[in-house]
């Protein structure tokens, strides 16, 4: 069930693609057809005269044990992908019975949503399920996980199911967006909060993009994004600024990928805090995620780590350093044991753990509020990124 890769680049990925498990981007009718097959199979097993049974749901395993790294030979993009290892959801096991029912409840919802030709937010879906089946859905996490289970069962993307996740992403800078039949949006003349990225991947896919920027800068935090936007960094340094305000949602990754495809000569730089969480965010943009591994491999980009890095620590006053928290250590441990972390990043991470300290980008303001822009420009010009 591999998704049809349009380019020649696909042919170069050799063995990896045979093991790669992918969620297809499908039209509503096709998804409904898959759901119908699911129902028919289930009923057939129930009604079997010789050996009636309650079918077990085979879900692609979304764990680090089932993830691998695939590297493209023609481009410098690597992505994390999931392979054909399964975990079972069975009604007969008490530990997974509720999750089993949740999958069906979500499938029922999606079937109806797609039948009405709608696209629904994850948040709306949560409230609908909460009111109809409070026994099974008491928090957003239940809904999100059940949706990912359906993605992994039916092997189709979340948006194909008629569900989208709202994005917190924003971009600003030397970019003109043009939605078909809409007015152009010049992202260089927007307010400091920039242009909000929609969660609808279809809309993002149809955008026309034009830009004379030379760089794309991915910013971890909203505060930094706004600072740079207010200072109109992109007028001094021709660039596009993009942020997801924390963990990169699929929509932000999608648009970043589109930008990188549309403007292949624009390098992508990341500006994150010096802590394991910041590196994890960078890795998500760079390789994709495991939890949405069936889809996100498509949107991996070659992101380079601009700052904050170990070399920059001399710029930061001692008082600005903080202790690493237990959560940081957990993330660091997980990253260090992963398969994809490149050597230079591994060295940075090891330094963090050894020092036991973390620092935020804002610490650079100790040199003045305009220091950050200069810092970024200098680093790019000097090629100081990994």
């Amino acid at each position, binding site marked *: *069930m591999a998704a049809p890769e349009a380019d020649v680049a696909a042919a170069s990925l050799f063995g990896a693609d045979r093991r790669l498990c992918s969620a297809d981007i499908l039209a509503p009718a096709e998804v*409904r057809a898959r*759901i*119908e*097959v*699911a*129902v*028919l*199979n*289930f*009923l057939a*097993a*129930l*009604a079997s005269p010789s050996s*009636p*049974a*309650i*079918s*077990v*749901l*085979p*879900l692609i*395993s979304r764990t*680090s*044990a089932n993830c691998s790294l695939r590297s493209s030979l023609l481009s410098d993009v690597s992505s994390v992908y999931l*392979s*054909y*290892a399964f*975990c*079972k959801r*069975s*009604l*007969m096991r*008490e530990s*997974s*019975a*509720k*999750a089993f*029912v949740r999958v*069906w*409840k979500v*499938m*029922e919802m999606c*079937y*109806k949503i797609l*039948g009405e030709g709608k696209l629904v937010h994850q948040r709306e879906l949560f409230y609908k399920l909460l009111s109809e089946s409070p*026994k*099974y859905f008491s928090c957003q996490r239940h809904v*999100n*996980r059940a949706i990912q289970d359906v993605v992994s*069962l039916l092997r189709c993307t979340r948006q194909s199911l008629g569900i989208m996740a709202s994005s917190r992403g924003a971009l600003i800078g030397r970019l003109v967006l043009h939605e078909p039949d809409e007015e152009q949006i010049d992202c260089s003349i927007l307010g400091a909060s920039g242009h909000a990225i929609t969660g609808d991947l279809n809309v993002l896919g149809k955008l026309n993009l034009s830009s004379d920027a030379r760089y794309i800068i991915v910013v971890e935090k909203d505060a930094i994004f706004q600072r740079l936007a207010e200072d109109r960094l992109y007028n001094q340094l021709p660039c596009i600024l993009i942020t997801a305000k924390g*963990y990169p949602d699929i929509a932000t990754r999608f648009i970043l990928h589109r930008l990188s495809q549309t403007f292949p000569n624009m390098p992508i730089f990341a500006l994150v805090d010096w802590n394991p*969480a910041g590196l*994890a965010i960078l*890795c*998500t943009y760079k390789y994709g995620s*495991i939890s949405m591994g069936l889809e996100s491999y498509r949107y991996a980009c070659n992101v380079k780590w601009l700052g904050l890095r170990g070399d920059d620590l001399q710029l930061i006053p001692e008082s600005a350093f903080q202790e690493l928290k237990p959560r940081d250590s957990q*993330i660091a441990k*997980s*990253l260090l044991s992963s398969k994809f972390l490149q050597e230079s990043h591994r060295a940075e991470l090891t330094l963090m753990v050894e020092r036991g300290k973390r620092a935020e980008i804002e610490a650079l303001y100790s040199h003045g509020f305009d220091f950050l822009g200069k810092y970024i420009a200098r680093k790019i010009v000097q090629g100081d990124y990994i």
Partner: protein
Amino acid sequence: MASSTSASSPHRKLLRSLVYWAVQRCRMSESPCRLTVSVKRPAEAASASLLRVSVSDTGVGSKLEEFLELDVLARETPVEKWDGTLLITTTGINDEAIYRYRFNLQEEISSARFTKLATTYKNHATFSGTEVCLCLSNEADADGFILWLVGFFHKILILRAPNLACELFVEQIGNAESRNVRLPQDSDDVHHSVMASSSDRLVSGLKDYALSHGNTCDKCDTCILNRDLLKIGTGAANNVDRRKAKGLHVEVVIVIARTASDLCCWMVNCPSTQVLYFEDFVPCPISQSSFNVLVSTDWQSYGFKLKGGFIDDEGNAVLEWDSMTFARVDIAIHTYLECAMQDGQGSQQDRHLVRKALKSALSHLKANHARDFLSCHGQRVREYVPDLAESIAGLILSSNDKEFQDECITLLGLGSDQDSEGLVRSSICEKMVHIIELNDTKENVDDNAPYLFECEKLDEDSQLDEEYEDEDMVFDF
């Protein structure tokens, strides 16, 4: 509770032993026998007055050896309670005479224990039997003793032993009818064919026990109407071939009233069960090994939630249940030797047989009423079925693809006019519940269950636990 009311009360131990041997003597006789216990109590509880007790039976004659076993008991019992004397009258079927003895267990010199009294000649009459008379103190606990004796007799009657009629008379001398007891009562009218097995008799007896609310009241008219709604499980085990315990039989009977509506007089949930335990047709305190079998049984596989168990002051096993849907649970365990032994210690305990018989009785219940005795795990899974069925039915009926709907209806075995959501939902429900019952307590069911979709290639099958998923999905690295 005061020790005088406990199973260790010497009066009770004494009576139990005397009745036990009387019953065995009756069993050894090949003809129908009668066992009679009579207690005469004085009009007032004067300090020097005594209870006159007699235990008589028409079984084979006594060899007197069994009375020697009362030695220890006699020595433990204060003289004021029992003076250690028994007046025994006995004759065997082939004896020419009826022999009478005074038996004094307090006597140190063994040769002087038995005193032979006047003999009566039978003059060619053919009968056998034994009568044992004794006097017990009429202390403050006499009421408790009599109450216990009545209960004891009620329990004997549950067994409905073949060829054995049991009677109990308690009379208060000098007082009219007020405190007299006569068992069995005229209203007890039970006829069993001679061919009925002891297991069937026990079932009948236990059912009546249940219907009379554990012998706490007369048979309830309303309950009798619902007699057939009681659910019965019987199990038996024996080791007739083994040399060690010849012909040891264990029978277990379980009687369940499913819901309060089955027998409307009772509480909604049964909190506890006092297990009836019999050895060789006589109620006994439960043996430790049998009690261990009871509490270590896998009740959950049959839908019972055992909270705990203990042995009460009277030597009965009490099982405490936790939030059960059964209104009443009655259990009887009977171990007996095929051939009664006059001088035996009673049937040897064999916990393997007890376990086997109990499991057999539970399996019997489950086999006949799978839905009512679904294991606790099965019950938990079953709770999800209505919601799941609702979801799938809703999905099917929301479709505007007629072909798909028709195919679903056909698969469910419904007619084309039976396409309402309610019918589809209940059809799916029924099928799922049936599968849950079918697979209840079976091992490895999951390994054989089909997958919803064919999986291209399984690298490994690992079970994803709910706990694992609790990890923050934000950072999956």
